[in-house]
């Protein structure tokens, strides 16, 4: 395997890891505020569809982005209504959100475009094009660092850079601002926040809305950056892998970057080398596909450092009377 191939695989890992990263950070806001969210998959799918559909009709990827994020946020609102206002079971609500997206997107896609549940192929301004960073072509021939800059770092769509920027931003918001302190407190000990005169309900709705935006961006990237249009069930379990990455990262933003890029890398490798021959055994592609889930179970089991979720996670808050 030469250097160029390694760069290509890493480049592909970044592309495949980006939707995971956005969804993972989305889940991080929600779960840190005490709202479990297994509906990331559905939100991404909804966003992928609406961005694909609107971008196809208007030919404008930015309008697609708005529509996609709107679709994702509407599901986030449903989840908030169920888990905050009606104090329902957050896991059941997440399951419902996923099915709602899965059925609704195909239903509407078929009714609008009659192409068997997909949207028309996007081209031109309908997609987020790769951005060439300044000087990328100039340094192309510099040994080692040149290809890294021009082929790996440069040449992604704007959403990839947004996703990476979200990592320090998320860290800063959560751990260096008053809002972040309150948000984490709502997820650990909502009574204390309530005692301080801050509305738990409002904090949780805000967190769920941020989740909607970020998961939406992940879905938008799938339909308008990674692919050229929406295809039925195109999230293909990415929302669940993001959930796995979130646990793997123990609900922290910087490790979330590491986890999602690791899972992106696994996908990139299995796309390129379906069966990996290690001499003694051959790792089949099915094993590579299952690795994120197996790793998550091992982490959850606490054999490699324990993953402890936010303490008030999953519990509706009932104000004492």
């Amino acid at each position, binding site marked *: 395997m030469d250097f160029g191939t390694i760069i290509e695989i890493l480049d592909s890992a970044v592309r495949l890891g980006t939707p995971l990263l956005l969804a993972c950070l989305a889940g991080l806001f929600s779960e840190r505020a005490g709202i479990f969210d*297994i509906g990331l998959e559905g939100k991404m799918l909804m966003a992928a569809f609406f961005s694909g559909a609107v971008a196809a009709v208007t030919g404008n990827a930015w309008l697609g982005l708005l529509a996609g994020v709107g679709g994702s946020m509407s599901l986030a609102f*449903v989840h908030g*209504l*169920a*888990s905050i206002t*009606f*104090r*329902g*079971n*957050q*896991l*059941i*609500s997440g*399951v*419902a*959100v*996923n*099915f*709602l997206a*899965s*059925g*609704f997107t*195909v*239903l*509407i896609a*078929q*009714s609008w475009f009659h192409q068997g*549940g997909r949207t028309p192929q996007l081209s031109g301004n309908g997609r987020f094009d790769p951005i060439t960073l300044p000087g990328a072509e100039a340094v192309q021939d510099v040994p080692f660092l040149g290809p890294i800059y021009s082929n790996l770092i440069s040449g992604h769509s704007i959403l990839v850079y947004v996703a990476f920027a979200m990592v320090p931003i998320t860290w800063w918001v959560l751990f260096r601002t008053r809002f972040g302190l309150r948000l984490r407190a709502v997820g650990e000990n909502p009574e204390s926040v309530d005692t301080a005169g801050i509305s738990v309900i409002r904090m949780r709705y805000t967190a769920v809305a941020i989740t909607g935006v970020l998961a939406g961006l992940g879905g938008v990237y799938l339909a308008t950056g990674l692919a050229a249009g929406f295809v039925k069930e195109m999230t293909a*379990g990415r929302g*669940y892998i993001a*959930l*796995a990455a979130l*646990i793997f990262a123990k609900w922290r933003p910087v490790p979330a970057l590491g986890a999602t890029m690791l899972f992106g890398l696994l996908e990139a490798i299995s796309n390129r080398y379906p069966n990996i021959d290690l001499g003694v055994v051959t790792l*089949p592609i*099915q*094993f590579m*596909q*299952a690795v994120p*889930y*197996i790793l*998550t*179970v091992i982490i*959850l*089991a*606490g054999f490699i450092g324990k993953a402890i*979720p936010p303490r008030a996670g999953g519990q509706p808050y009932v104000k004492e009377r």
Partner: protein
Amino acid sequence: MEKTPKWVDVALIPLLNLLIAFVISGIVVLLIGEDPIKAIKVMVSGALGSPYGWGYTLYYATNFIFTGLAVAVAYHASQFNIGGEGQATLGGLGVALVLLAFPWPHWTIALIAAMAGGAIFGAAWAAIPAYLQAKRGSHIVITTIMFNFIGAAVLNYMLVNVLRPRGSMDPATARFGASTHLPTFHDFPLVGQFFSKSVPANVSFFVAILACYLVWVLIWRTKLGFEIRAFGRSESAARYAGISPVKIVMAAMLISGGLAGLMAINNVMGEAHRLVLNSVEGAGFIGIAVALMGRNHPFGVFLAALLFGFLYQGGGELALETTIPRELITVIQALVILFTGAFDNMLRAPIESFFVARANARKEA
């Protein structure tokens, strides 16, 4: 404090929630430019209007009874088993291995062996998440989700690399021997003449009904069932009463996984006569809706499974006869889960306070 009448809890609220789900689905149908009344007519005539329709409706219902019971049993121990899909997938593998291992002389013996194979594989797939929950506190919802994906990968590997007959491109096992084919409704005395040969409903339907009865006995008439319910109501109280949490979580989840695995006698042994990729087709997830709708009671599960069997078959007919894709059923399923599960308090709170107020007013009068 007065309690609300039982019929409100078991009938009125679920039916109202179902009604809301259907009304919203009707609006969705209107929005995509179709006629909801016509859609209902197509579904009813397609699923219930002929013995052929019933043959499919009951076939689907059989799947959903098993997966619904699986979710219900775990739920009584306050465990949310979202892994029915993976457990049923592995159950299919168990059934296929049993049926391919031995030239079974008669379907009755083959059925008993296949039931054992399906239940053991299904239970085994629930065992690791159950153990991790009981011993190490790993959240069972997340682990069972992960095991759904791992299960799909295992089945994919087994079909592509191990069980696929030599020379076949299709990722599926060889066909099971003709002597293992279960009698379908067509083969039954008296009623057989009404059902055509292609109808997939088979004796598994009666196994499913038997399973409903046995689950009822287990939950409400045995010591283990009592312990499961006690644990589900209050873990700390059960602990003080000397009930072992590890034992209850393990027992409830193994039974749950076993029930999900049993589904394979219907779809794999009874219908496909071989194991193919994605043979479960989401039935594991529909079990969640069925258990919620049926209030986790075996009789409720039975009725809800019939309802979803009807929706499934009716949805298929809808896709054939109108331009409405069968994903409409996924939307209905999602709305049923949403309203009977997550939004349950929306109606429950006002309705319960209404009945409590009425009862109190009567007492004063």
